[in-house]
């Protein structure tokens, strides 16, 4: 089903009104907008109620027509005042009294039809199709189908780039974050409403602050899942600015959201329990604020033999494919970061006594050495001889000798 809105001299209002109801909108002409209303029945009721809702939303007198055929709706909106609902199959009957000048024909075809005394849609619809085809060709056939409300053309979605930007110039420079937060809140609420009106969400938030006697302060917040909650945006912005303040009074604020389709999620009884993405993102931002972003996330192993090689990636609560669980039970190492320097007495080629901060004593037993080296072609090569040792405190440690410096280090303990 389609609904056409027609009013003279207010094209932006018509577009805004249509987009409030449906993301699929066509700008048929400067004074006519067409939208798909399939699926709106659950929200607004019958086609007539949808048409009434559209007219009320516009706030000015407009013509609204609802029909199963896109062109029939457009012609009805242009030719009939107020609200028109054309039941399926009744298009020709409803359109019959409309004047022929509403049809988009060429001047030659219009002249020919005028000469034949054809003045309305109904008169054109009643002509024999074969005769029309013989005299006016393909164009005539198309015009006749339009007059019967049977054209059945494709809907042309309006794909003009929509930007979600807000700019605000301040009357006087603002230095504190708190008054800025009020302004952010207002701007983000407006942006979120505009996103919601187009059934969109945002996956990036760009902030630009023009500063007094300093270069502009720019930051980008990348969100792991599309959101449109202004409170979540505001909290993330506050955390970002408290971690990295602008450094000078703010003269102008620019906010831009990157629109994307919203997240769709099917909840189920047997799905994995996971933190709510919006809440999680704010929690992670708060943690990063006082611990540093490099200390919060998911460890990802790096494909190398270098000891303690990993990098921290952003934690997203998404179920990922799992490798098979390793067989057997390997001893678990707790690492000392950085490794603790140790004084080691070697006897018969094996560590015999160790002294390292609070640890001191005879090595009761040892196993090794295991040699590992690599990255000799880089500026950070490593060359270790590793030992597993048992100390009198009853604990087991990993000890290594750095072959490049001949110094000993405690790398961690087994637990």
């Amino acid at each position, binding site marked *: 089903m389609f609904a056409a809105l027609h009013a003279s001299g207010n094209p932006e209002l018509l577009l805004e009104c249509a987009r409030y109801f449906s993301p699929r909108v066509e700008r048929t002409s400067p004074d006519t907008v067409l939208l798909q209303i399939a699926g709106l029945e659950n929200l607004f009721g019958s086609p007539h109620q949808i048409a009434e809702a559209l007219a009320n939303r516009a706030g000015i007198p407009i013509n609204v027509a609802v029909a199963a055929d896109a062109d029939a709706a457009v012609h009805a909106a242009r030719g009939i005042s107020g609200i028109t609902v054309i039941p399926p199959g009744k298009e020709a009957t409803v359109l019959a009294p409309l004047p022929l000048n509403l049809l988009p024909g060429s001047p030659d075809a219009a002249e020919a039809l005028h000469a034949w005394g054809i003045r309305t849609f109904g008169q054109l619809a009643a002509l024999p199709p074969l005769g029309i085809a013989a005299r006016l060709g393909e164009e005539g056939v198309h015009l006749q189908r339009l007059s019967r409300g049977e054209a059945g053309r494709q809907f042309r979605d309006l794909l003009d780039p929509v930007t979600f930007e807000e700019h605000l110039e301040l009357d006087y420079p603002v230095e504190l974050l708190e008054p800025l937060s009020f302004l952010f809140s207002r701007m983000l609420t407006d942006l979120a409403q505009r996103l919601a009106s187009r059934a969109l969400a945002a996956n990036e938030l760009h902030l630009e602050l023009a500063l007094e006697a300093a270069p502009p302060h720019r930051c980008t917040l990348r969100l792991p899942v599309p959101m449109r909650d202004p409170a979540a945006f505001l909290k993330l912005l506050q955390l970002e600015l408290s971690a990295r303040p602008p450094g000078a009074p703010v003269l102008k604020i620019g906010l831009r959201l990157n629109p994307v389709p919203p997240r769709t999620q099917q909840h189920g009884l047997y799905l994995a329990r996971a933190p709510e993405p919006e809440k999680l993102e704010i929690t992670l931002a708060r943690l990063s604020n006082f611990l540093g972003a490099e200390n919060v996330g998911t460890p990802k192993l790096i494909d190398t033999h270098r000891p303690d090689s*990993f990098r921290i990636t952003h934690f997203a609560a998404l179920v990922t494919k799992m490798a098979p669980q390793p067989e057997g039970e390997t001893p*678990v190492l707790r690492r000392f970061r950085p490794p603790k320097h140790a004084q080691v007495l070697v006897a018969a080629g094996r560590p015999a006594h160790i002294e390292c901060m609070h640890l001191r004593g005879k090595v009761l037993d040892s196993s090794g050495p295991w040699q590992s080296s690599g990255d000799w072609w880089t500026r950070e090569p490593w060359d270790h001889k590793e030992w597993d040792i048992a100390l009198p405190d009853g604990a087991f440690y990993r000890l290594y000798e750095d072959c490049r410096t001949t110094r000993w280090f405690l790398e961690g303990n087994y637990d």
Partner: protein
Amino acid sequence: MSTAAAALRSSIQADVQTKLGPRFDVDFGFRSKLQQDLLPGGIPRGAFTEIYGPPSSGRTTLMFSALAHLTRQPEFCAYIDAADTLCPRSAAEAGVHLPHLLWVRCSGNSEHALKATDLLLQGGGFGMLVLDLTGVSLRDARRISLASWFRLRNAIEKTPTAFVVAEEQLNAASCSAKQIRCRASNPVSRPGLL
């Protein structure tokens, strides 16, 4: 020539086997047991469990077994590492599915660790939260007030999250619903390797 080649080959083979073979065959013997009765009987959800014991008593093995079990359910878990001692490779070898694990490194600051725990508990949605205080000095661990432990206990109640604190000695006293003591009694079960 053939003798020299054979000697060289055996030398290289021995070297490679040394490098690639098992290096320290300690069996704390938790995993097979835990996979059967970790939850709900072993570590309760919606409550606070303390795992304590001296170094090399198997506390980390116990926690990794629990994390491996839950991250493969699949659930999401958080590891608040007060002293930054977690070894991601060891965790992966113990079966923990790392993409389902949030690691929070606090660089030895137990106050930050408590604050992070509080935030994550309030956020909710995790299957298990581990607060690892084992690398923190006993003095710092004891400085954590009873009020903080009570607050954490109240935050975890009525949630489906299991909250585990690993430490050298009991600190939370009556706040914890369960205390698991690990002993360092002869963990090496296969002699001859040390």
